[in-house]
């Protein structure tokens, strides 16, 4: 560890490259906490957005008109508004109403800024996932669904065991694009002070004035994070592959 820190100190003193996260344990701690927060935020948002997407696509095919209209509104609302505005709306508008009394007797928000970021990003990406899953569902041949009905599957069973597994395979490429975008959209949580990587880096560069260095670190960190996600998605795609079926 000492030679590691010495290297970064030398980099600064001899080359003027001020990577404080290399030699200052406080800044490194802040930065690593930021990376961890981004990972948590991404994983939770991806998970919930997939659930919202799958459930939404199922409801979209519902025989009940009111449910279909509701989902239509939901998609229109989250697809037609910028995610930053949604975040502000949840945190500053909805968050002000949803309050509980804290231990010190003063009102506190029911949901933390991290909580709102997960909710907001999940709904945003979830709305897009509904459309992506729908495109997959529509690619499932009608004859397959008729076959499952003939075997006595009800609507939910047909969806869960036949349609969704096939639809996911078809939708996977565009789903991947949306999830990669979701990871990058987590930077917006900066606006409501969720300490993710961008926030941590901005704190560091406003204290240490090493904007140039931290910008590079930030870019490389995202390249790394997204590369991991792309790799996982690729593995998933491979594992799901059915020999002889479509893609």
């Amino acid at each position: 560890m000492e030679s590691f820190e010495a290297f970064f100190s030398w980099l600064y003193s001899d080359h003027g490259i001020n990577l404080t996260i290399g030699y200052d344990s406080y800044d490194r701690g802040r930065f690593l906490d930021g990376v961890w927060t981004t990972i948590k935020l991404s994983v939770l948002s991806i998970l919930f957005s997939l659930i919202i997407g799958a459930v939404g696509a199922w409801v979209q095919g519902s025989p009940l008109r009111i449910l279909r209209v509701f989902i239509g509104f939901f998609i229109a609302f989250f697809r037609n508004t910028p995610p930053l505005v949604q975040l502000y709306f949840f945190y500053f508008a909805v968050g002000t109403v949803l309050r509980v009394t804290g231990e010190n007797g003063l009102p506190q928000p029911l949901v933390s800024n991290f909580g709102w970021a997960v909710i907001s990003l999940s709904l945003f990406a979830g709305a897009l996932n509904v459309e992506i899953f729908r495109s997959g569902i529509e690619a499932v041949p009608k004859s397959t669904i008729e076959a499952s009905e003939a075997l006595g599957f009800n609507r939910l069973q047909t969806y869960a065991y036949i349609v969704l597994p096939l639809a996911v395979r078809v939708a996977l490429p565009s789903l991947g694009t949306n999830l990669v975008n979701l990871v990058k959209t987590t930077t917006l949580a900066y606006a409501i002070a969720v300490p993710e990587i961008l926030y941590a880096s901005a704190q560091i560069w406003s204290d240490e004035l090493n904007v140039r260095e931290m910008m590079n670190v930030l870019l490389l960190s995202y390249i790394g994070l997204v590369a991991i996600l792309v790799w996982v998605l690729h593995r998933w795609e491979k594992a799901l592959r059915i020999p002889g079926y479509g893609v």
Partner: protein
Amino acid sequence: MKILAQLTFGAAALVLSAGIASADKLEDITAAGKIVVGVKQDYRPWGYLDSDGNIVGLEIDLAKDVADKLGVAVELVPVVSSNRMEFLQQGRIDLIIATMGDNEKRRKVVGMIEPNYYAGGANVIAPKGSGLTAWADLDGKDVCAIQGAYYNKQVARDYSANIVAFAGVPEATAALANGSCVGFVYDNTWIESQLASDAQWAEYEMPFVTEQLQPWAIAVPLDELDMAYGDKMRDIVTDWHKSGFLIERNAANGIADNPFLQEQQDRLK
């Protein structure tokens, strides 16, 4: 060609006017019988408009005292942060007493008078009854802040506070108001002025002793800094500290005790 001629003429006129201005300013002021001071009118209680529309406040008390000491009348010109130094350079005002922080960059533009007459620093605005009495009470709590403020790091480091930093004051105060953080760490002078002027803050207080002070300075034109005028101003500010005038006016304007003023008085005594 015509434009060029006008430019040359303009430049010549500028040089000429600068030449006149650099004649002994102190004598000019005495001869004119008045000193023109740039003050804030939107920063209660340092400089603000009272119900009759007069500019009043701590810095106006200071401006009047300068005029008294010079034996001239005072003329107050309201300024804002973005034009005060330009006004001084153009000769529109003779002196700046307008909550101006002293730093290296500004020293290249205007003549900062030392000793510094005042200092602002970091404090916290928190709801009454939050139970905060000392900085150490912030341990492990969420504290709202502004991104890039110089004191954030120290508050986080020294008191283990969890800094929740927003882009601007409206976001930070909204987060404070909805209870997302126990307090909002910001300039103590801003907090004072909000508590003094805005009913929105009736249920809030400033519970700590101000820390991490950054000095403010009154300023004269740069080329007057080492002339008789600058000397006179240095004498006046030194006297303000020595005599306790600043401490007295600070209290009289309803501003909380400022450790910087006591420090300066002890130092200059």
